[in-house]
C-alpha cells in the first residue's frame, strides 16, 4: 500500500481506486438527486426572475428596432462625411426612399416614435414622405435624383439638422432612455441637455419618491419599534393576539385598505368630520389630507408597517431579558440601559426592516396612485403611464433599471455598514 501511495502521490481506497474518484462516484447519485429536487425551483426563478429582469435591462438600452427598419439607410449613412458635406450623398437618399417604401408599415410606424425622441418633426416628415413615395412608385417613374425628389416632397430632407439627428439612431444600443428618465435629452449635436421646462417631470418625481420613502421608513420605524417590543415581551397569550392585529392588514386586500384611507382622510371624511364635530376646526377649514403627499405617506406607512414590525420582532425576541436586568444591576438607569444595551442589539432588525420598507416604498404604485393625487405620485406612476399610454417601453425599462440599481446600491451600503449576515427578516 505504502509504495503505491508514494508513486502515484494520491490516496487510494482499500480496493485500489483513487479516493477522490471513489468519493465522486458515491456522491454523484446524491448530487443528481439534490439537483433534481431544486430543478423546478431553479427553472421557476429563471423564468420569472432572471429572464424578465434581463429582458428589462436589455430593453432599456435597446435601439435595434429602428436599425432593422432602416438597415440599408444606416449603412449608407455611415459613409457620409458629415464634417465636410452639408447633406448626405445620393445613395443615402435612395436607401431611405426604398426603406420607407418597402418597409413594413407597422415597423416603420414604431420607428417613427423613436425618431421623434431624437428630434421632433421626424414623424410628420416621414408620414408625408411615405404618402408621396407611394404615388411616385405607383406612377412607375422612378426619380432620376432621389435627393432632389425627396427635398421637393418635403423641405425637411434638405434640413441638415434632421440628418445630423439620425446619428443618435445608428447605434443598436442607446442610453437615451436613461437620460430621459432624469429629464435630459440629446441636442442635435448629441450633447446631453435638459429637457424643455414643461417636459421636466421625472427628477421632481424621483425626489418625491425618495422623500416619501424616507418619511414612510422613518414613521414605520417610529410606530413599529414599540409594537415590536411589546410583541416580544408580552406573555404568549397576549402577544399572539397582538400578532394577529399586526398581520390582519396582510389578509385584507390592498385596494380595500387604500380605499378605507380615502374614506378616513378625505375632506368630507371621518377624521375631518370628527374634528369639525369637536369644534377643533371650522367647517370651511377642513384639512386636505388625501390626494396629496400627506395621504400617500399616511396610507403607505400603515400598509408597510408589518414589514418593519416583523424583522424587529424577530430580533427583539432573541435578546435575553437578562440583558436589561444585567445593565441595571451594573448600575445603569433603565433609560441608559435601554440606549446602551438594548437599542444596539436591535440594529440588525431596524436596518433589515428599514431596508425592506424603503425598497418596497420606492417602487410602490397602487396606493400612491389612488390616494396620491397630483403631488403624491411616485415614480411607479410613470412606469405605468409609459407602459400603457405612450408605449415607450424603453423608458419604462430604464426607470425600472434605475430602481433596481438604487436597490442594489442600498443593499451594498447595508452590507458595508451592518453586514448582510446580520439581516433578520423573520
Amino acid at each position, binding site marked *: 500500500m505504502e509504495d503505491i501511495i508514494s508513486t502515484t502521490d494520491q490516496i487510494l481506497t482499500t480496493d485500489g481506486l483513487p479516493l477522490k474518484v471513489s468519493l465522486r462516484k458515491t456522491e454523484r447519485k446524491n448530487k443528481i438527486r439534490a439537483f433534481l429536487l431544486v430543478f423546478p425551483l431553479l427553472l421557476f426563478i429563471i423564468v420569472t426572475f432572471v429572464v424578465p429582469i434581463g429582458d428589462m435591462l436589455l430593453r432599456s438600452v435597446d435601439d435595434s428596432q429602428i436599425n432593422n427598419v432602416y438597415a440599408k439607410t444606416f449603412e449608407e449613412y455611415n459613409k457620409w462625411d458629415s464634417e465636410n458635406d452639408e447633406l448626405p450623398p445620393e445613395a443615402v437618399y435612395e436607401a431611405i426612399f426604398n426603406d420607407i417604401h418597402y418597409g413594413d408599415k407597422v415597423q416603420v410606424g414604431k420607428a417613427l416614435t423613436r425618431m421623434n425622441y431624437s428630434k421632433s418633426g421626424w414623424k410628420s416628415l416621414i408620414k408625408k414622405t411615405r404618402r408621396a413615395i407611394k404615388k411616385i412608385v405607383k406612377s412607375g417613374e422612378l426619380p432620376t435624383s432621389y435627393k432632389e425628389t425627396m427635398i421637393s416632397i418635403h423641405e425637411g430632407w434638405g434640413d441638415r439638422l434632421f440628418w445630423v439627428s439620425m446619428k443618435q439612431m445608428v447605434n443598436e444600443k442607446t442610453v437615451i432612455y436613461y437620460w430621459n428618465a432624469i429629464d435630459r435629452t440629446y441636442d442635435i449635436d448629441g450633447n446631453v441637455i435638459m429637457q424643455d421646462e414643461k417636459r421636466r417631470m421625472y427628477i421632481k418625481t424621483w425626489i418625491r419618491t425618495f422623500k416619501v420613502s424616507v418619511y414612510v421608513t422613518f414613521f414605520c420605524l417610529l410606530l413599529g419599534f414599540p409594537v415590536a417590543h411589546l410583541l416580544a415581551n408580552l406573555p404568549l397569550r397576549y402577544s399572539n393576539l397582538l400578532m394577529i392585529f399586526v398581520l390582519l392588514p396582510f389578509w385584507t386586500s390592498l385596494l380595500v385598505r387604500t380605499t378605507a384611507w380615502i374614506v378616513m382622510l378625505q375632506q368630507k371624511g371621518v377624521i375631518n368630520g370628527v374634528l369639525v364635530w369637536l369644534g377643533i376646526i371650522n367647517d370651511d377649514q377642513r384639512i386636505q389630507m388625501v390626494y396629496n403627499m400627506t395621504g400617500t405617506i399616511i396610507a403607505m406607512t400603515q400598509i408597510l408597517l408589518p414589514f418593519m414590525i416583523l424583522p424587529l420582532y424577530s430580533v427583539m425576541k432573541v435578546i435575553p431579558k*437578562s440583558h436589561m436586568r*444585567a*445593565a*441595571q*444591576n451594573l*448600575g*445603569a*438607569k433603565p433609560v*441608559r440601559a435601554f440606549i446602551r444595551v438594548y437599542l444596539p*442589539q436591535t440594529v440588525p432588525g431596524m436596518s433589515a426592516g428599514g431596508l425592506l420598507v424603503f425598497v418596497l416604498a420606492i417602487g410602490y404604485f397602487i396606493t400612491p396612485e389612488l390616494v396620491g393625487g397630483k403631488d403624491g405620485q411616485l415614480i411607479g406612476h410613470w412606469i405605468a403611464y409609459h407602459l400603457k399610454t405612450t408605449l415607450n417601453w424603453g423608458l419604462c425599462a430604464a426607470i425600472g433599471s434605475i430602481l433596481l440599481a438604487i436597490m442594489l446600491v442600498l443593499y451594498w451600503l447595508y452590507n458595508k455598514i451592518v453586514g448582510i449576515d446580520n439581516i433578520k427578516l423573520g
Partner: protein
Amino acid sequence: MNTNSDGFVIFEKIDKSYDGEVLVVRNLNLNITKGEFVTMLGPSGSGKTTTLMMLAGFETPTNGEIFLDGKPISKIPPYEREIGMVFQNYALFPHMTVQENLSFPLEVRKLSKSEVEDKVKKALDMVELGEFGTRFPAQLSGGQQQRVALARALVFEPRLVLMDEPLGALDKNLREQMQYEIKHIHERIGITVVYVTHDQSEALTMSNRIAVFNDGVVQQLSTPDILYEKPENSFVAEFIGENNTMTGTVKEINGEFCNVDLDSGGSVKALKINVNSIGDKTKLSVRPERVTIGTKDSNVNQFEGQVEELIYLGDHIRARLNTCGSKDFIVKIPNEGDLNIKESSKIKISWDPSDIRALDYSQ
C-alpha cells in the same frame, strides 16, 4: 435561623407570591454574615431564584423586608443597590468587547478614564483573561465567557455578589474547575457571595453555609458537613447525597435514640431527630457508606438482603440489595481486593444506631 441584627444581609419574614394564590417563598428568615459564601440549594421551583431576584431588586417581596448592611432595601431600585450579579447565561452584552462589558459599570459610575482602564485590567487579570480584552463575547469559549461575567460582576467592587446558576451551561470538567476558581476568588477578596444552584456537589464544594430550599421554605441552613451528616428532615436527607430510606412506626423512645418497627418487618434502633412521640410514622435515613457488610458485636440493626446487582466503580463497589422493604438499598463496599459476594446471593448487613436518623414522614 436567628434574626440577630448584625447580619450583613437579613431576610425578615419574606413572603412572595406572583398571582396572589400560591406562595413561591414562605416566611423566609435568613441571615448572612459579611464575607460568607452562602448557597441556596433546591430543586427547580423551590423559590431559590425568586429569593435571589428579590435581593437583586428585580422582584418585590409581597411581605417582609430585606436588609443590606443594616438598611432596608425594598425601595431601592436595582441600579442603586451596588450588588453584583452573575446571570444564568452570563448576560454579557454581545455588541461590546470584553473590555467594554467590564468598563460599562464603571463608566456608568462616572469614573475617570484611567481608573476605568486600571480596574478593568485588574479584573481581567484576576480571571486570567488579560489578553482577551478586545474580543467579543461570541469569540470566547463558555468557560471564558463565564469568567468575564464573573469579572464584570466584581469590577465595580459591589457590596455583595449574587450568582444565579452560573455554571449551569458548562460541561462537567469545566464546571468543577470553575467551582474551585470561584471559591478561590471568594477566599482571596473576601466578598459576600449568595449563590443559587440545584447541583448539590457544587453547593457542597463551594459554600460556607447552604440553605436547602423546598416548596418556598428553607428546610435547613447549615454548613456542608452538617447538612450531609445530620440532615434535620427527610427532604434534606434525600436531597443531599445518596441515602437509603426505610419507613416505620416509632415504638419506643430512649433519650437520644428510639426504636422503630419497620413496615417491612424487623426493628431498628435509630437517632431520634424529627419524631415527637410513640406511634408516629417516620422515615429512617442511613447513608450507603455507613452500612457494613457482615454482623457486628451488638445485635442491633442487623438485616439480611439479597444482592440484586453489583456495579464496579473502581475505588468502591456499589451493591444494590433487596432488603428492609426496598429493592434499591444501596451499600458502598470499599474495594479491598477480596470481595467474594456474588449477585443473587444473600448477605448480612448492619449499621450503627448513631448512623441512622429517624426523620419526619412528610413525603
